[in-house]
């Protein structure tokens, strides 16, 4: 009995340690944002947030620079979501419901592209965008990000459509519906949760993306938050509290959304998709 109790205590301690490790860095980001200079550079570290410093969040937003970054990120992420879902649904549908020449090749291509590093593709895409005047434009980033997230989205949606009994499609066809109508009226409503999950994946893939953004965008006006925040690293001009406040506002939406859809995301990721 005694051994059992010790084992139980150990397990509780272990769970608390693991959760502490998981959450601490983001907590620390929040605490650092809310720490006065005196505490920050003093002898002992302050371990709890000082809410009298909350103005740092307000100032960071009022300054306009960070707000602009976040809006640019929002635009890129929204565009990427719409484009990759718009292309991914018909692709997933074709892969799930039809038998055709080249299907195996297409599937292999979708899996293969996921091992290509962005850092490798950034050079040829740079050349391509220069020719079509897509450098220094949010459109260019939307296209590049969509190309990288589309395979994941398509494979998740294919898996979702696979899960719908074919009888439903047949019933629709008996009623005279054409394939496109079957897709929009029967399949899409049924895979709505998977569409939502892949939308979250696509959105935050673009929200977090850095390599393309830092290489393709020169105009600071249209720079997304990932680049703006990365530029803070090693830079000494901005107060660290402001840096952490901006970074926290950038991080929080991603974490909150993932918590809501994490079950779908993990299922989708393991169901034939690979994220980088």
């Amino acid at each position: 009995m005694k051994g059992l109790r010790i084992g139980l205590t150990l397990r509780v301690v272990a769970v608390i340690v693991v959760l502490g490790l998981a959450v601490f860095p983001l907590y620390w980001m929040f605490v650092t944002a809310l720490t006065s200079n005196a505490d920050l550079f003093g002898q002992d570290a302050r371990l709890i947030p000082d809410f009298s410093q909350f103005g740092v969040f307000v100032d960071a937003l009022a300054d306009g620079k960070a707000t602009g970054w976040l809006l640019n990120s929002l635009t890129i992420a929204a565009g990427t979501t719409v484009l990759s879902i718009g292309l991914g649904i018909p692709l997933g549908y074709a892969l799930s419901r039809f038998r055709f020449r080249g299907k195996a090749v297409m599937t292999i291509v979708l899996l293969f592209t996921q091992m290509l590093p962005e850092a490798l593709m950034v050079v040829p895409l740079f050349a391509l965008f220069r020719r079509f005047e897509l450098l220094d434009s949010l459109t260019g980033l939307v296209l590049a990000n969509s190309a990288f997230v589309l395979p994941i989205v398509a494979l998740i949606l294919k898996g979702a459509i696979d899960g719908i009994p074919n009888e439903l499609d047949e019933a629709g066809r008996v009623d005279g519906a054409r394939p496109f109508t079957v897709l929009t009226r029967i399949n899409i409503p049924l895979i709505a949760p998977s569409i939502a999950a892949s939308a979250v994946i696509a959105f935050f893939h673009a929200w977090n993306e850095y390599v393309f953004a830092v290489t393709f965008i020169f105009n600071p006006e249209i720079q997304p938050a990932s680049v703006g925040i990365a530029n803070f690293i090693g830079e000494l001009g901005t107060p660290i509290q402001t840096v952490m406040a901006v970074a926290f506002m950038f991080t929080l939406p991603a974490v909150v959304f993932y918590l809501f859809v994490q079950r779908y995301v993990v299922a989708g990721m393991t169901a034939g998709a690979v994220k980088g």
Partner: protein
Amino acid sequence: MTVVEQQTRAPGSVSRRRRGRRRPSPQGSRWTPYLFLAPAALFILVFQAVPLAQEIFLSFTRTTLLNPTESTWVGLDNFVRIFGDEDFHRTLRTTVVYVIACVVGAVGAGLAVALLLNRSFRGRGWARALVTVPWAAPGIAVALIATWMLNPQYGIVNRFLDAIGLGVPGGAILDSPRYALPAILATTIWQLFPFTSVVLLSALQSVPKDLTEAAMVDGAGPWSAFRAVTWPVIRPTVGLLALLMTIWSLRRFELIWLMTKGGPVGATETLVIDLYSQAFDSKELGSAAAIGMVGVVISLIVIAGSRFVARAAEKEDTR
């Protein structure tokens, strides 16, 4: 590549998928599937296939970033040069160490956490959700907070290490050839373990509980019960995760780039970091492309190898 597809099927979806496959429904004309496929295929062709082909071409040329439209064909020169270069050997070694440590660390930590969270206790739902936080955090934010936590003067990590008497002299962990890679590895594994543990947690759901209990009643210790009952069930998932972690780690860029740029003196320079600095610092697009191809070939070898191992394991099981 099919191994990825085969192994990655969520356990529950297998039967439904089979049903879908057994009854393919040729609807519309034979061109219908291509109509649905065409926009996405065209998109992937333009933004993935063509750029990749260009990159393969570049790897056989001398091309500088300053004048990227002018390439001189040099055959295998780039490959001969990088493989003769001591620095590249170091990059390869660093890459191998980084990838193996990521795989072992992320899968090991993930398995430990999954086993820990697999018991039912109050607040388990919360614990499962909170544990995924690192995975959800953007890489940029992770690099930023890690750099701040490792700050030589004010970083909490140094304050903590000093307090327990393990402080690094000078505290400059990311500037130390000895400690930079371990620090980057710790950050990477911190970000990856939620993914591996959530996936393994769902694999553990299909371990028969009464079988584990029966083994324990029969006098098996927790370790032998794990090996006899749990391990065979989760082994394919562990294999898949190891493959995923390998591929992801071979292409991971921003975390390393933002924390150390591959330094100090190349101590954290993986293939992808080397490729990026060749292209944008040295402006040598040809050697950059060649380094990239080495990475792609390594990924392909790993995938082929894992497929071989998976097949061998399957044969072992059916014997």
